[in-house]
């Protein structure tokens, strides 16, 4: 039975990882019970426990700043494209042709191969009604999946964690970066944020390196659960009546203690994986590659994560776009190619789905400085071992414009909804508030 295996893996993990780190550290019986209870509850209702070895994984890649969609998926056959962009239009003969109308940026050869292998879906003209051209606001709209005239506090992935994964391990969501993305903001925030795995750990005072291990042992004593201060253990409650299926039910101190323990367990696990799993596939230089490399290693190590998040900046190309965008496309292409090769080598490509998004595309016409200004609709890439390949949605017209900008024809929440329903196996209306048209990308 699948659940049982999960449970055993988890209990085994608790024992091994904790005993592995500090010899003085013993697993309280109570703790085992709590996790047992959480896992048991997760079987019921809509909750689901990430299983590490076999669950599906979503990787969300943000292209921050507003990626120029028209020079990413290029409507090369449209005269209007060449007319609007005398300096920035890419030459027809270099386009990596997808069909008789559109093709990929010449630097996206790796994505072209994925398309040919049947692992890439391109969703065209993605946007939302009443588009906002402010980076801040439009990013917020994408992150919270809200309507443009509503302000939503929590992120779409945060709502997914809240509604569908309560009581699970914090490693359910991992964001690579310094700051938690708003997409992860939740009623009961979960998920982990770090730039480098080595950051995600408690650091002893370095001034006294000789004593480091003892200081850490005491630290662990202070941040572990124990029988005495936990009501469940003292009042002899049975597993079924254990409190704390969700962190919101706990007293503040219990909540802090549980989070402290979670932090230690996740930190140990992530550091162990980072030490053990290195990629043999070469990655390009740069932060984006470093982020996806960490993600690949975490996947290889079987971290129980459903959603990874990475962000890459620099797409706000108001001036001198040609060279900048070429470099960005190269970096994106080479990084994704390495990531995919890595996952294939691991045998995990079938389990992973990667989606890219940007807060908006750019104006159809280039500006006077060889750049483009903030626009609206743009394409999204959806790729993975089990994706249904192809071009989805119509390419927006380059002549029927709204204030010089493309009119969207696919709501980005259709992509989110499809991913929730068909990849994360979660009813999308719970997370998005309503049903959006399903796309045949999965």
């Amino acid at each position, binding site marked *: 039975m699948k659940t049982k295996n999960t449970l055993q893996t988890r209990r085994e993990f608790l024992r091994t990882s904790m005993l592995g780190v500090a010899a003085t550290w013993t697993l309280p019986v109570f703790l085992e019970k709590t996790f047992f209870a959480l896992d048991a509850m997760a079987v019921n209702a809509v909750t689901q426990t990430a299983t590490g070895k076999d669950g599906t994984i979503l990787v969300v890649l943000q292209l921050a700043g507003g990626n120029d969609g028209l020079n990413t998926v290029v409507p090369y056959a449209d005269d209007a494209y060449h007319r609007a962009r005398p300096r920035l239009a890419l030459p027809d003969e270099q386009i990596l042709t997808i069909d008789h109308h559109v093709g990929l940026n010449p630097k996206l050869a790796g994505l072209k191969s994925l398309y040919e292998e049947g692992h890439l879906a391109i969703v065209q003209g993605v946007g939302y009604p009443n588009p906002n051209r402010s980076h801040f606001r439009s990013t917020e709209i994408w992150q919270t999946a809200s309507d443009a005239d509503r302000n939503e506090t929590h992120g779409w992935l945060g709502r997914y964690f809240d509604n569908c994964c309560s009581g699970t391990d914090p490693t359910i969501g991992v964001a690579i970066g310094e700051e938690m993305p708003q997409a992860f903001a939740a009623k009961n925030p979960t998920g*982990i944020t770090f730039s480098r795995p080595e950051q995600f750990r*408690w650091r002893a005072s370095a*001034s006294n390196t000789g004593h480091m291990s003892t200081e850490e042992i005491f630290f662990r004593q202070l941040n572990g659960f124990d029988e*005495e201060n936990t009501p469940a253990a003292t009042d002899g409650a049975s597993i079924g009546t254990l409190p704390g299926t969700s962190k919101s039910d706990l007293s*503040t*101190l219990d909540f802090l203690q549980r989070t402290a323990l979670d932090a230690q367990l996740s930190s140990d696990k992530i550091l162990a994986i980072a030490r053990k799993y290195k990629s043999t596939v070469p990655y390009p230089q740069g932060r984006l590659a470093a982020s996806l490399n960490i993600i690949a290693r975490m996947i290889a190590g079987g971290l129980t994560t459903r959603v990874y998040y990475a962000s890459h900046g620099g797409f706000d190309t108001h001036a001198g776009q040609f060279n900048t965008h070429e470099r960005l496309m190269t970096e994106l292409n080479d990084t994704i190619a390495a990531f995919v090769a890595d996952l294939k080598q691991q045998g995990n490509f079938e389990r992973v789905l990667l989606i890219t998004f940007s807060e908006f595309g750019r104006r159809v016409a280039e500006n006077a400085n060889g750049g483009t200004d903030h626009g609206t609709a743009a394409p999204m890439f959806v790729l993975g071992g089990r994706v249904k390949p192809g071009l989805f949605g119509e390419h927006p017209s380059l002549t029927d414009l709204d204030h010089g900008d493309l009119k969207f024809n696919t709501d980005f929440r259709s992509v989110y909804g499809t991913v929730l329903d068909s990849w994360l196996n979660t009813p999308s209306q719970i997370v998005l508030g309503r049903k959006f048209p399903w796309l045949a990308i999965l």
Partner: protein
Amino acid sequence: MNMLAQLPASLWNDETAAHLLNRARFGATPAEIESARKKGLVPMVRELVDVRADAGNVPPPAWAKPRNIRAARMALKAAKERGENFRETARQFRMMEGDEILDLRRWWLERMMNSPAPLLEKMTLFWHGHFATSVQKVKDGYWMWLQNDTLRRNALGNFATLVKAISRDPAMMIYLDLQQNREARPNENWARELMELFTVGIGNYTEDDIRAAARAFTGYRIDMTTQQFRFARMEQDLGTKKFMGHTGPLNGDNVIDILVRQPACSRFIGRKLWRFFVEDEPSQEIVDAIASRIRAHNFEMRPVLREIFSSAEFYSDRAMGTQIKSPVQYIVQTSKLLETQLASPIVVQNAMRQMGQILFAPPNVKGWDGGKAWITTSTLLFRYNFANYLISGDAMLPAGQAARAKPQDAGFRRSVQRRQLAAQIKRDPIDVSKFVPDQLRDKPRQLVDLLSGRFFRTRLAEKETNTFVQFLESRKPDTSDATMRELVHLMMSTPQFQLA
């Protein structure tokens, strides 16, 4: 029964005094707590609440002066059209913005540390979370300072007056698109949030009310040559509006007055005040009680706060030591408790980011969730490690890598940047002798008791106390400063230290 009955004098002690100073200020040292206890509850509350009338009159940072933005924009546009290198100008503009907002954060945090009227700063922080406005959209240091100044001047005053001032605040007007609201092309962003987030709360208005309010708030503009609010009389929609049962040629101030008279408004503000100062999940009874006091005091904040801070409810077990410190509280209070200075502005700004509360950049118009939402595994570990940095200085960073720059680095510019950064990150260890008496260094239990009184306001369980004692025992006979610092770091690396 009076829910807000005064705390009996017999219960005024170090613990209750510390609780008051934690919540109404940004924490206090044992000496300050003792002094508060000696003053007595009523005089102490009066000292906090009844600040001098001109206390809100605070000199701005030197750079905070209005500019002629229209002229600057036109010059930039002209340069752009002439094909000049406007990018460098634009870059300098952005850098200046960045420097100003960095300095504004430093300036405010220092006020929180040192102001003679700390409650004024705490209330300003409360209103900043309530009327959440982000520099990410406003993009101007002067406007962000101006809003902060407006909040401070009205922080302890009348709520309706404050809302009216905020409706004329350029930063807010930009943030919620009020200056784009036109009779012919309404923008309802401000009108909606005024009701949903600032006054009555969701469920207490209709979509028709929003449309009517948007019409009432016409003519609200910003003078881009002076960066000040400007009322454009000619653009005002003087037509009859129906708003919450009132009909007439209502203007923005009329709408605010009507909203503040709604019973929902006193409950909404009362609940939020209680959550900020007292407990995460107030009962309906307490919300109703505080709401009726707010109405009785006609939305004057000073008497309301006086009653809250004097009430037995404020000092109940549900309230004392149960609040998770906000990142801002954490930064200021920890610096106070360590008897040290704030970390450098760039470090503090980064710390706020990683802990999830950057002043002048709330995540959205709803402000910060607060409470348990402050804590995730990542933010908790960051707090522990940040405490280490505050205590031990940059020596605690992995091999001192960030601060101790290598002299010969690839690329001159990068090495200069790194050296500059290193200079900003550099921090010496704290002077533990300020609060660790020499004669207690080799008396673990007494020392732990003394320091627990400083760092924890709730009584520690025996388990934690014993662990700290065992740590010191394990080090014997080492009683060096370094060991003392490690003890302090262990004390701060606990769930209990996150509570105030």
